């Protein structure tokens, strides 16, 4: 399993992600720049957070036309795992590899805080080794993280069990207080129809070293992925 950590001009979580995968979790992962069209040598692509192309026009709107997105789409089409974190999620949504859009937070403020996340779907390659209803703690850091989609799409996501994570209280219960950005259905992460493409706004790569504080729930998240890819 060789993972491409995709870096765009303006990505800023790429090194954290590579560190988490390569040094903390001992995965075979390497940085791949946005100009690389062909990702046939990789078994998965992880799109890191940041402000690709300055977030100009809309977050992710320009990055989706980067040559590397051809390779990402090809991996996604062939059923290989593709994960977008924060800006990576925004890019996957703009690229239509995931439905819906990420809009300005309800508060119109940049949010940088720890949140609790309830695992909603545990039947996919990413969270398959976690338990449905399990609560994780991870930080968010975004301006445009409010998940929005039309009613039919939200219904479909719920019916097909494609809500990956939801913002919750520590005990897993849901309330307006625990939905930091006003996302529809408190959605923090979703899956594609084939369940091999996932996007989430929170940052698992930022909670992979106990030394840095904030716990190690990111390790749980990525370990689940590693286990999930083993046959």
């Amino acid at each position, binding site marked *: 399993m060789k993972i491409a950590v995709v870096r765009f001009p303006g990505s800023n979580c790429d090194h954290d992600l590579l560190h988490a995968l390569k040094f903390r979790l001992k995965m075979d992962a390497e940085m791949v720049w946005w100009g690389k069209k062909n990702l046939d040598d990789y078994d998965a692509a992880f799109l890191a957070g940041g402000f690709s192309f300055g977030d100009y026009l809309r977050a992710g709107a*320009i990055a989706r*036309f980067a040559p590397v997105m051809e390779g990402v789409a090809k991996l996604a089409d062939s059923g290989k795992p593709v994960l977008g974190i924060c800006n990576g999620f925004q890019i996957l*949504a703009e690229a239509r590899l995931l439905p819906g*859009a990420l*809009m300005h937070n309800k*508060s*119109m403020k940049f949010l940088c805080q720890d949140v609790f996340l309830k695992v909603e779907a545990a039947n996919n390659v990413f969270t398959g080794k976690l338990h449905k209803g399990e609560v994780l703690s991870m930080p968010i850091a975004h301006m445009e993280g*409010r998940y*929005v989609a039309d009613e039919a799409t939200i219904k479909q996501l719920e019916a097909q069990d494609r809500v990956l994570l939801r913002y919750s209280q520590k005990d897993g219960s849901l309330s307006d207080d625990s939905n930091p950005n*006003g996302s529809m259905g408190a959605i923090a992460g979703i899956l594609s129809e084939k369940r091999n493409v996932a996007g989430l706004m929170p940052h698992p790569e930022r909670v992979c070293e106990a030394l840095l504080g904030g716990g190690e729930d990111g390790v749980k998240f990525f370990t689940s992925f590693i286990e999930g890819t083993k046959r």
Partner: protein
Amino acid sequence: MKPGILDPQGDAVRGALRALDTAKVANVRIGKIIEIDLEENDKNAAMTSVKGMCEKLLANPVTEDYHIDITGK
């Protein structure tokens, strides 16, 4: 922005406009204007071209509607 999509920026501006006591402001929606200079003299061709740009890049069909005005020199 499509109807029904929460526009927190518009809501904040509505609040400020209501504070100006002359304004009977029911609702405010904020969008953006993009000005494009085209090297194209044919209006229909220009319309087709800009429409393509809107669909592909300039507007996000999930959240935004768009309207095109073509003005000559």
